[in-house]
């Protein structure tokens, strides 16, 4: 039997367990994936710890995992101003880290929320009325290609140093992808779908609300996901000036004050929050557009 000779040990194991039910097998595969993920993460931490513990890199450039953890804990707790002192100082920059995070999330929520409303409406108008699309599209592309850091100064001059200019920045960064996705969703609808509704007696408005809007929902959701991603990458830029409380502002300020453990802790928090928000929107999209990919 030549097959035996070329069967890898791994294959033998699989062959020896044919009695496992498909559901169990899926669960086993899921467990294995989680285990591999954890192992990789542990290896990464170990390497990070090893490099810093061996003194290969100065702590200023790369603090140890423990130092980053301590910075994160300190940023979420109160401690005496000095050893033995009565007065307490809480968090970093007078706010706990989670308060910084909430502040940034609120800005992102406001900016992206406005971007969704405006982007979807503009996308609908541009997607349904060709001449308007032709006129506006170059400006949309122009805005889309601008780096937010380039015009934050201008927004501060216009709207002041407070939250208004920050929300404007997030809005301007987030609305082009929403508008683009809506346009592509609206113009990608099969003509027959619209014709069918018209022949059933639908008015223009009824076609819009009953056919065009639900048809483009799926694309709008992918646009929103991209927009939220942009908003996260923009939030540090938005919080460069007067960005406290704000997780981006904290990351920036701690960097300028050479508190590298805190900077890294902030970066990790931003990354985890961004992934969590993305998963949330993705699942919301699945919930609202269950027919995606099926029809």
């Amino acid at each position, binding site marked *: 039997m030549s097959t035996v000779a070329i069967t890898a040990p791994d294959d033998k194991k699989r062959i020896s367990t044919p009695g496992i039910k498909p559901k169990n097998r899926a669960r086993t595969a899921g467990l294995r994936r989680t285990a591999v993920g954890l192992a990789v993460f542990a290896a990464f931490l170990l390497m990070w710890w090893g490099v810093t513990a061996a003194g290969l890199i100065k702590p200023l450039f790369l603090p140890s995992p423990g130092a980053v953890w301590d910075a994160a804990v300190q940023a979420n707790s109160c401690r005496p101003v000095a050893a033995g002192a009565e007065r307490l100082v809480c968090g970093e920059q007078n706010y706990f880290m989670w308060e910084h995070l909430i502040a940034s999330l609120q800005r992102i929520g406001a900016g992206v929320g406005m971007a969704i409303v405006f982007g979807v409406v503009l996308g609908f108008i541009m997607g349904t009325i060709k001449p308007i699309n032709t006129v506006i599209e170059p400006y949309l592309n122009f805005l889309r290609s601008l780096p937010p850091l380039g015009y934050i100064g201008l927004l501060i001059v216009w709207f002041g140093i407070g939250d208004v200019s920050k929300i404007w920045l997030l809005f301007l960064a987030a609305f082009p992808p929403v508008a683009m996705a809506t346009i592509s969703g609206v113009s990608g609808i099969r003509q027959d*779908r619209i014709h069918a509704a018209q022949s059933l*007696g639908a008015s223009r408005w009824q076609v819009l609300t009953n056919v065009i809007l639900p048809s483009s929902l799926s694309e709008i959701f992918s646009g929103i996901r991209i927009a939220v991603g942009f908003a996260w990458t923009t939030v540090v830029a938005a919080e460069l000036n007067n960005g406290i409380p704000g997780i981006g502002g904290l990351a920036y300020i701690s960097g300028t004050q050479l508190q590298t453990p805190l900077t890294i802790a902030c970066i990790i928090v931003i990354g985890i929050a961004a992934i969590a928000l993305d998963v949330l929107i993705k699942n919301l999209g699945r919930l609202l557009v269950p027919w995606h990919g099926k029809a």
Partner: protein
Amino acid sequence: MTAVNSGSGTPPVIAGRRVVLDNVSQRYTTDRGDTVHAVSDTSITVESGEFVCIVGPSGCGKSTLMDMLAGFLTPTQGTVTIGGEQVTGPGQDRGVVFQQPNLYPWLSVRKNVELGSKFRKIPASVRHDEAERYLKMVGLEQFMDRKPYELSGGMQQRCQIARVLANDPEIILMDEPFGALDALTRERMQVELLQIWRKRKKTVFFITHSVEEAIFLGTRVVVMSARPGRIILDEAINISDENGSPLGAELRSAPEFVRLRDKVSTAIYEAQGVTGMSPAQH
């Protein structure tokens, strides 16, 4: 009080509107700059209640003709009028059954069928019952609360037909509606369609590739030539029996059926022959 509506419970027959295509042409320019004559100088008058089957080789402008009747396309020349009124766009009076089911995946099967009534703001309870009636008719009563994508292609097509019928259009435009159905369902739908047509006295335009289907269903069979599409045969049919029995062997071997089938087939064959020869003539 007594004189009006004596006896029978049937509603008074409302004189339907006549459909007239007057010297209609449809030409368009392709991306490469070529002008295509999809339909050329076509005139036809269809009385209310007629069942017109349109056959012809692929690409002969059958669907273009349908699009102009539906109001999706405006003729580049000539006019389409219904009861003397010019067609300027799609409307509830002309129900369209497309080749593709075109159901809305975010609506249940029932909600899809109710859609036309919903557009006309008919009370929910009324349109509910109507939808149920038509879904029973097409044999989908067990699938009313499913989503269209959970149904097979044939079932989706039946759902589309129910949606159009439930909307009670005066004229029904059908573009190869049974093409995707299996033979058995197809026969059943043919019989159902004939029964509805007899009961409701709708005007039907029906595109098909099948000569037998055309002769079985139609009161009139129109053959179109290849591009530029023209009507080359317009034949009245008078054979389908009152019971609307399916296309059985009995009907198929009836001498009148055979004669019509040969006549229509020959016309289609000649229509294709013209395209086959034209490049050589240049």
